[in-house]
């Protein structure tokens, strides 16, 4: 599925800050939205997820305006995970939390339990299935919020800073899940400001700066433009900085 933006303008009431994007194409595959704190990433995230609709311009999913989607339809097609996992848990167990998503979308009961088992296994939460979500560690709560997005198998999935507070094994697990989904043709967008991770795992980037899209395209192409990286106020991958400091050629970017 394709998410397209056309002449988008949005600002919160009584605030100066405006998010602007003239043209943006989100193709199937893995894309990262990067930029410094306050660049407008989270705002654009809510717009793309169809949760904020008071904007000017158009956002379309496969040519259909996002605004016209019924809420269930939107939720089935677009999954979103917010930065703070604690904004969403209310069921008495990890298993029920994931199940709830599917019941909302009227998935048949038999399919439900199969899916829940598979998703919990995928996110390494099978052992905690009967625990209360709030008894999990922050890293596992974060994984659970990702699991709730994965369960309905949405064609488009958006994640706001999924790597924050994840420990190292979980970060690798989540990277692996994203890559796998992208290969299957899902459209995955991940907010991050960690170029080390992006350079190694994500082939496409949307770079935000002061509410504007300052670059959209191949990750490699962005990393090869020092002035753009500087403008975004981000730091090149550590390995690039290290090799440059040593005065030798940085390793080629894989993606």
């Amino acid at each position, binding site marked *: 599925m394709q998410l397209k933006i056309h002449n988008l303008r949005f600002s919160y009431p009584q605030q100066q800050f405006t998010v602007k994007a003239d043209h943006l194409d989100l193709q199937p595959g893995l894309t990262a939205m990067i930029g410094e704190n306050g660049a407008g990433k989270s705002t654009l995230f809510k717009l793309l997820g169809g949760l904020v609709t008071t904007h000017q311009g158009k956002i379309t999913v496969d040519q259909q305006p996002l605004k016209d989607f019924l809420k269930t339809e939107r939720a089935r097609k677009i999954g979103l995970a917010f930065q703070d996992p604690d904004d969403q848990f209310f069921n008495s167990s990890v298993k029920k939390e994931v199940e709830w998503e599917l019941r909302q979308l009227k998935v048949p009961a038999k399919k439900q339990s199969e899916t829940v088992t598979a998703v919990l296994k995928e996110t390494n939460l099978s052992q905690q299935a009967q625990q209360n979500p709030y008894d999990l560690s922050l*890293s596992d709560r974060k994984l659970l919020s990702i699991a709730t997005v994965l369960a309905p198998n949405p064609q488009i999935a958006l994640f706001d800073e999924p790597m924050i507070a994840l420990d*190292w*094994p979980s970060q690798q697990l989540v990277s692996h899940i994203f890559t796998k989904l992208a290969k299957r043709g899902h459209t995955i967008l991940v907010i991050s400001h960690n170029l080390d991770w992006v350079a190694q795992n994500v082939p496409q980037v949307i770079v935000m700066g002061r509410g504007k899209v300052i670059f959209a395209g191949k990750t490699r192409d962005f990393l090869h433009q020092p002035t753009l990286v500087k403008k975004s106020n981000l730091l090149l991958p550590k*390995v690039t900085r290290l090799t440059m400091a040593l005065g030798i050629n940085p390793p080629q970017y894989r993606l």
Partner: protein
Amino acid sequence: MAFNSKIVFSHVSVSYPAASQPALKDFSIRLTNKHIIGIIGNSRAGKTTLCHLLAGTLPKMVDGEVSGHYQINQWSPQQDWGVYNHQTGVVLQDASSQLTSFTETVADELAFNLINRGIQSQQIKKKVRRVAQLFGLTNQLTLSPAALSGGQKQRLAIASVIVTDPAILIMDDPTSQMDPRGRQIFFHWLQQTTALVFITSYEVDALAEVADELWLMDKGQLVDHGTPFAVFNRFTSPRIKHPVCWQLAKKMGWVLPTDGQSYPVNYQQLEEAFHAAQDS
């Protein structure tokens, strides 16, 4: 610079009510003259519990059963809490909730700890301006703390704590929401501080640069400790992230000339290993 610090943990265990496993198991360590102690480990390692012990908030404010003996410099965080707390600055994991929530401006929030200590308003102004500059908050001084982004709130929480120049700092993952520049500013500042610092973080690269001691924890236990160099070279499990310096050097076969088999963990060591490899 020599640091006059003393850290003693002797068979310390912590259990939370209704938890099946203790959060900290028989934690023992004895160290002197350390400056920055980095605490690393995966989820459920006991890092946050350790921070609460160091801050003296466990068991005083956080419910839990604590056994064993522990002491930082001349104080017991538990028994000497009042005096000890006056010496410490603590940044909790959820930094935005540690802001007072009733100050109207960033400047007022930064002044809060100073006002509590009865410091003169002229001096308060000076100190507030200084920390705001250190943490890149000068342009935000007149804004409401609620209007800041997550990363800015974290910087504000840290700045509000260090404004009193505490002798001991305890910080639980203080940079989790900061962008790369914010992190750079923070760790650069950390290196300059004269306080005794305990910091948990997933930023192993930064810790390898600034820490002189690393504690590696797993499931409530101290698995290994020593300099970042020693720990990362001893403990090579893929379950723990290694600094990029270490990974790069390992890939290139750049070993440190001192022992001919260990890999560098920070830039200074990397240069050394790189030049040794060039020479041979």
